[in-house]
């Protein structure tokens, strides 16, 4: 029997019992909607995180102080990570190309009568190259600026907008109580995970120590670039050895710092997101099973109700195969309609969830493979749970079927 005729018959039959069809498809709808909603959110997150991390490159390494909190009665170990550590790394560790310290805090910034509270970062001249985040206008501060302790700053576009600085290059602003001259404006980066990368003010590391106080020098983050991606592991190991030595950590005592490489950061996020996806996958599996049983149930009812129709079809020459295919297509159509509605609802839910989450959350993103898998599974569910009712229909005796009231 021709496929288009079968599909027409399937739609006619499903439309005739519209409410029943929709209710039956509900299991599938919920299952597919759940998977698409979560996948869309997770994929959006992953998209953004890997995008950000990949941006700084595979050779990006970050060293941060690790706060160790002892149990009750134990004194907290005083963690120190300083720019002197950073300079030692640059001096003693092979294959380190660029390195910058980084300290930051939210500080008041003033321009004429305008005030604003952006993130102020104290870094050195390598920061743009280490982070692959460059100036758009003007220039970043140079080694010479650092040596001369020049009172300069580089600002993000949000800061320029907020302070209403018409001509930013050369403008004088106050960071805390320190007057500085703007020498550059960063390229626009946008927001991610609630953080505005354009709402930042960069000042030379030493100026930042003046602003945040000398104690800040003990809690420095170090960001560096290894010269090649092959040398990342060696650089990481050497930094660990060097810092343990410098911090007098011996034996089994754990590190008081943490060396993170970009690949590890990506894999940590991926593990978390992968776990979320797996749990949702299991839930969806159950939902699809329940949905499939619903479809089988309603198809059995449909076969019984349409016994006479089956008899008529057989009397005019339908073979078993024709009847089997007809009811299978009906079951698959039912499952696929559930799938389509589910995908639409799931995407809608994903978009809505992203809107409802406060702050900046990456846009929901439904990859094509998820849609393809959703459709594949729906077809599979339709076939698996439709085959029994369909074969029951196909095996009906035409005489009995024609006599059925």
């Amino acid at each position, binding site marked *: *029997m021709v496929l*288009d005729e079968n599909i027409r018959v399937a739609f006619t039959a499903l439309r005739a019992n519209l409410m029943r069809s929709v209710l039956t498809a509900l299991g599938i709808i919920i299952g597919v909607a759940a998977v698409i909603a979560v996948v869309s959110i997770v994929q959006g997150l992953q998209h953004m995180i890997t995008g950000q991390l990949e941006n700084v490159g595979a050779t990006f390494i970050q060293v941060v102080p690790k706060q160790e909190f002892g149990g009750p009665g134990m004194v907290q170990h005083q963690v120190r990570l300083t720019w002197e550590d950073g300079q030692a790394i640059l001096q003693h560790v092979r294959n380190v190309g660029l390195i910058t310290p980084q300290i930051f805090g939210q500080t008041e910034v003033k321009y004429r009568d305008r005030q604003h509270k952006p993130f102020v970062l104290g870094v050195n001249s390598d920061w743009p190259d280490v982070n692959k985040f460059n100036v758009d206008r003007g220039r970043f501060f140079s080694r010479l600026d650092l040596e001369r302790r020049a009172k300069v700053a580089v600002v993000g576009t949000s800061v320029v907008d907020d302070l209403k600085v018409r001509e930013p290059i050369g403008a004088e602003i106050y960071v805390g109580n320190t007057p500085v001259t703007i020498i550059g404006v960063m390229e626009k980066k946008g927001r991610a995970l609630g953080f505005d990368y354009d709402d930042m003010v960069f000042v030379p590391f030493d100026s930042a120590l003046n602003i945040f106080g000398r104690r800040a020098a003990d809690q420095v983050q170090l960001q560096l670039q290894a010269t090649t991606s092959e040398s990342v592991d060696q650089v990481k190991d050497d930094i660990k050895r060097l810092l343990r030595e410098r911090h007098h950590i011996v034996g089994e005592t754990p590190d008081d710092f943490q060396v993170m490489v970009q690949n590890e950061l990506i894999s940590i996020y991926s593990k978390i997101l992968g776990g979320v996806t797996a749990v949702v996958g299991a839930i969806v599996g159950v939902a699809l099973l329940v949905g499939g049983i619903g479809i089988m149930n309603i198809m059995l009812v449909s076969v019984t109700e349409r016994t006479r*129709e089956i008899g008529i079809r057989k*009397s*005019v020459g339908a*073979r078993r*195969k024709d009847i089997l295919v007809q009811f299978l297509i009906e079951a698959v159509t039912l499952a696929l309609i559930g799938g389509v509605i589910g995908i639409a609802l799931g995407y809608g839910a994903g978009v809505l969830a992203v809107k409802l989450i406060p702050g900046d959350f990456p846009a929901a993103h439904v990859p094509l493979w998820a849609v393809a898998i959703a459709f594949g599974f729906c077809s599979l569910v339709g076939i698996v749970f439709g085959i029994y009712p369909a074969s029951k229909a196909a095996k009906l005796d*035409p005489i009995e079927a024609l006599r059925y009231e």
Partner: protein
Amino acid sequence: MSLIELRNVRKIYEVGTELVHALDGVDLDVQRGEYLAIMGASGSGKSTLMNLLGCLDTPSEGSYHLNGNAVESMDDEELAGIRNKEIGFVFQTFNLLARTTALQNVELPLVYGGMGRAERHKKAADALARVGLADRARHMPNELSGGQRQRVAIARALVNDPSILLADEPTGNLDSATSEDIMVLFDQLHRGGNTVVLVTHEPDIADHASRKVLLRDGKVVSDTRREG
């Protein structure tokens, strides 16, 4: 060679522990172009005979040749093919598919015969025109009167140019005026060269046929021909 050739056909059913001989050695020959009525009381075996003639069932014993094909040894698939090509059923209760237009109902045998869409539409429209319903092609069965529904059913039976038109109490659900119209249609189809087999218990319906076969207890008890 006869169109229909039944030789010593028996159909035995098992009802509980008892064996019921619904047909008990029937011999019957029907020639192409005949107009035959099979009559008998309820329980006489005429429904069983009709199911056998219509290839919905096979005999327990004996042989049935339809148009030269040995039906008694066919499997389900082959029987379906024979029903599709050789038999046109007309039922007492019309048996049209609901929510399906008159045209689509008539197309049904062609669909299972594997005919393409355009050719199917054309043949089905022609068949509807032959029963005088060309203007009702797009109507659903529930928008048609009883007589019109039976005409659609007859068009469906005719559409594949079958060897036999097999009608089971075709007027049983119709009033007498409409019944007469339907029987006039059968008479016309017969004059047009179709082989018509009526199964009925109503003598005035059977009177339209030129040959009457009377069944009782699974046996043919009389077989009479009317001249002219």
